[in-house]
C-alpha cells in the first residue's frame, strides 16, 4: 500500500513538472514576451528597447535556466544596473543585501502576478477559497439528486419512470454551462423576461428579479438568491452523467442472483433496494463522482466568468487572457494536483469500498 502511494505520488510530481514546463514554454514564447515587455514598459518601444528590457529583467536567459529559477533549484537572476542591483528575488520589500539566493516555489515564493500586481499566493488563496465554497455547494446539491435519479431510474429498468428520468439525465448532459446559465438567467434573473416581472408585479419579491444574475456579492456573503443560479448551473451538467452511471450500475445489481433470492424469500421491494442493492450499486458511482472533479473545474471557469464570481476559474481566465506567467504556472500546479489527487482518492476508495478487490 505504501509503495503504491509512493509510486503514485512520484508520478504526480513528474506530471506536474512536465505540465508546468510545457506551460512555461508556451507562455514564454518570443511573441508573448514581446507583448509582456510592451505592456510593462511602453507600447511604443522599438525592437532594440524590447530586447534590452527583456535582458534587464532576466528574460534573456535560456528557457531551462529560467524554469529552474521558477522552481527554486537555480539561483535567481541579478543584474547590476544604474539604479543598483535588481534581480528576481529583489523587490521593494527585500533590498539587494537581504535578498535570498534562491526564490522559487520550493522556497515557497510563488511570484508576483502581473495582472493583479499582488503576490500570486495571496490571489490564488482567496480564489481557491471562493471556488471551494462553490464546489462544496455544488457537491451538496448534485450528488444526492444524481444518485436519487439514478437509483430510481435503475430500480425498475424499462419502466416509464426509467424512461422519463433517463431522458432528463440525457437532456442535462446536453446542456453545457454557458447554455444552461444563459437560460436560467433569462428565466429567473431577468427584469424583462421570465418569471421575475410577474412576481415583481404581484409584489411577491422585493427587488426586480427573483435570483441575482451576478454572484459577486456572494464572495462576501452567500445567500440562496445570489448563489443559487451558479450552483445549479454547475450541478446540472455533472448530474446527468453521474445519474446515468448510477442507473447502469443499479440495473446491473438488480439483475444479480442475491436480489432474486431476496425477492423470492418475500422481502419487500423497498427493503431489497435499500438494504441489499444500494450498497453494491453505489460503489461505481463513487469513482465516477471523484473523476468528475476535473470536469467540474472546467465548468466552474465558464460559470464564474458568466456570473462574475471571482474564484479560481475567473482568475485563470484573467491570467490567460493577459499572459500572466507566474499566475498561470501556479494555476497549472493547482490543476494537476486536483486532477491527480482525485484520481488517487478514487482508486483507493474503490479498493476500500469493494471487498472483492481488497481481499484478492
Amino acid at each position, binding site marked *: 500500500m505504501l509503495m503504491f502511494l509512493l509510486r503514485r505520488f512520484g508520478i504526480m510530481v513528474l*506530471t506536474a513538472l512536465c505540465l508546468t514546463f510545457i*506551460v512555461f514554454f508556451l507562455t514564454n514564447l518570443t*511573441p508573448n514576451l514581446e507583448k509582456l515587455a510592451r505592456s510593462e514598459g511602453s507600447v511604443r518601444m522599438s525592437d532594440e528597447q524590447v530586447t534590452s528590457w527583456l535582458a534587464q529583467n532576466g528574460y534573456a536567459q535560456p528557457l531551462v535556466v529560467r524554469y529552474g529559477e521558477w522552481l527554486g533549484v537555480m539561483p535567481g537572476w541579478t543584474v547590476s544596473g544604474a539604479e543598483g542591483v535588481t534581480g528576481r528575488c529583489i523587490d521593494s520589500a527585500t533590498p539587494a543585501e537581504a535578498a535570498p539566493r534562491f526564490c522559487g516555489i520550493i522556497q515557497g515564493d510563488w511570484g508576483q502576478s502581473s495582472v493583479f500586481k499582488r503576490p500570486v499566493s495571496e490571489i490564488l488563496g482567496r480564489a481557491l477559497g471562493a471556488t471551494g465554497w462553490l464546489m462544496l455547494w455544488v457537491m451538496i446539491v448534485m450528488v444526492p439528486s444524481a444518485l436519487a435519479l439514478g437509483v430510481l431510474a435503475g430500480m425498475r429498468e424499462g419502466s416509464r419512470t426509467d424512461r422519463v428520468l433517463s431522458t432528463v439525465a440525457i437532456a442535462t448532459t446536453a446542456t453545457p454551462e*454557458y*447554455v444552461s446559465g*444563459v*437560460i436560467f438567467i433569462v428565466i429567473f434573473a431577468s427584469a*424583462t423576461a421570465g418569471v421575475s416581472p410577474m412576481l415583481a408585479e404581484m409584489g411577491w419579491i422585493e427587488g426586480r428579479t427573483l435570483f441575482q444574475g451576478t454572484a459577486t456579492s456572494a464572495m462576501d456573503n452567500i445567500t440562496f438568491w445570489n448563489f443559487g443560479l451558479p450552483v445549479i448551473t454547475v450541478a446540472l451538467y455533472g448530474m446527468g452523467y453521474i445519474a446515468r452511471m448510477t442507473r447502469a450500475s443499479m440495473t446491473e445489481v438488480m439483475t444479480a442472483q442475491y436480489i432474486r433470492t431476496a425477492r423470492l424469500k418475500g422481502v419487500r421491494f423497498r427493503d431489497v433496494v435499500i438494504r441489499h442493492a444500494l450498497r453494491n450499486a453505489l460503489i461505481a458511482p463513487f469513482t465516477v463522482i471523484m473523476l468528475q472533479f476535473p470536469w467540474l473545474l472546467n465548468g466552474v471557469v465558464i460559470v464564474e466568468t458568466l456570473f462574475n464570481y471571482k474564484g479560481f476559474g475567473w482568475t485563470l481566465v484573467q491570467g490567460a487572457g493577459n499572459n500572466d506567467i507566474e499566475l498561470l504556472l501556479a494555476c497549472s500546479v493547482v*490543476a494537476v494536483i486536483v486532477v491527480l489527487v482525485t484520481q488517487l482518492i478514487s482508486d483507493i476508495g474503490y479498493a476500500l469500498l469493494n471487498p472483492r478487490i481488497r481481499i484478492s
Partner: protein
Amino acid sequence: MEPIGWGGIFARMIIQFWPVWAALIITFAVSIHYRRRLGLYGKLFDSTVGMIGFGIVMFWVYTAFFADIIITHDPLGQLSSMKNKPPGTAAPDGSTYAYYLLGGDNLARDVFSRMVMGARRVLAIAPAATMFAFMVGITLGLPAGYFAGKLDTGLSFLANLVLAFPVILLFYLLVTPEIRDTGIPTILAAVLFIFPIIFLVTLFNSRYFTNPNRRNLYVGVTLVLGLWAYSGLAFNADPLGVWSMDPNLLNVFVAVVFVNAPTVFRIVRGIVLDLRSRDYVAAGQTRGEGAWYIMLWEILPNARGPLIVDFCLRIGYTTILLGTLGFFGLGVSPESPDWGSTINDGRRLLSIFPAPAVVPAIALMSLVLGLNLLADGLREESMKD
C-alpha cells in the same frame, strides 16, 4: 409594417426551413423502406429514441447544407434601425425579407440568419475534428493495449498529462494570434494530420501484403491522395491549391483534436485490453498473422459498437468545446456567427434583451441532445445483436 406575433414567427420559420423538411422526409422514407438491408444504420429505425436523435441531427445537417437558401438576411449585415429589436419586428423597406424573425442583436444583425449560418460553422468543424481525434486515438490505442509494457506506460503517461491540463488554459495558450508566428500549430498539425495516413496505409498493407499488386494499388492511391491533402491542410503547400485551411481555423481544429485524442486513446486501449484474450485473437496468432493485422482486422471490427456510440457522443462534446472557444472569443473572427460567440455577444445585455443569446443556446442544446439520443439508440440496438 406591424410586428408579427409568435404564431406568425413560428409559421414563417417553418416555411423558411422547407428544404430541410423535404430532405428529412426523403431520408426517413428511403431509410425505413430499406432498413433491413442497411445493417446497424437500419436497426436504428427500430428504436424511437434513436429515430428522434437521428431526426434532430439530420435536421441540423441539412440546415447547414441548405443554409444559403434558408437565411432571410445576410448574417453579417447590419440594418441600423433593427438594433436590439424583439422577435418579429418588421425590417426596413428594401430588405431581402420582410421581418427580423427572431429579432436583432446588439449590432443590428438578424439573429435567425446568424443562428442558421452558425450551424454550418459548427458542423463543418465538429465531425471532422472528431474523426481526426479518433484516427489518432485508435492508431495509438491499439498498440498500447495490444503490446502493453513500456509502450503502454509511456503513451498512458502522455495521455494523462494532456488530460490533466485545464482545457481552458490549453485553449488560451494554443489559440492565440501570437502563436501562429512561432509555427507551433503547424508542427502540431503536421504530427496530428499524419495519423489518418499512417492508419490507412497500415490497414491496407497488413491485409494485402501477400498480394503485392493489389497492396501497391491501395497504398499508392492512399499515399497520393493523403499526402496531397496533408500538404495542403497542414502546410498550406498544395501545388494545385485545392486543399487549404485558414490559419485561425487550423489553430482551432488542432487544439480540439489534441484535447479529444487522449480520451479516445484511453477508450480504445481499454477495449483492446479486454478483447485481446479472446479466441479469435489466439487463432490469428496461431495462424501466424502479424500483430497489426490482428489489431486492425480482428480486434477493431469487434470494438466497433462502443466506438461508434462514443463517436456520436464525442461529436457532441466537440460541439460544446467549440462553443466554449467561441464563448471566450478564442480563435474565431469577432463577427463569426458560430453559436459560442453569439452566446457570448448576447450575454452582456441578457437581462433586458434575451433573444440574441437564448436562440443559439437552444440551437446548440438541441444538436447535442440529438447526438446523445442517437448515441443511446445506437447503443441499445447494437447490444440487441
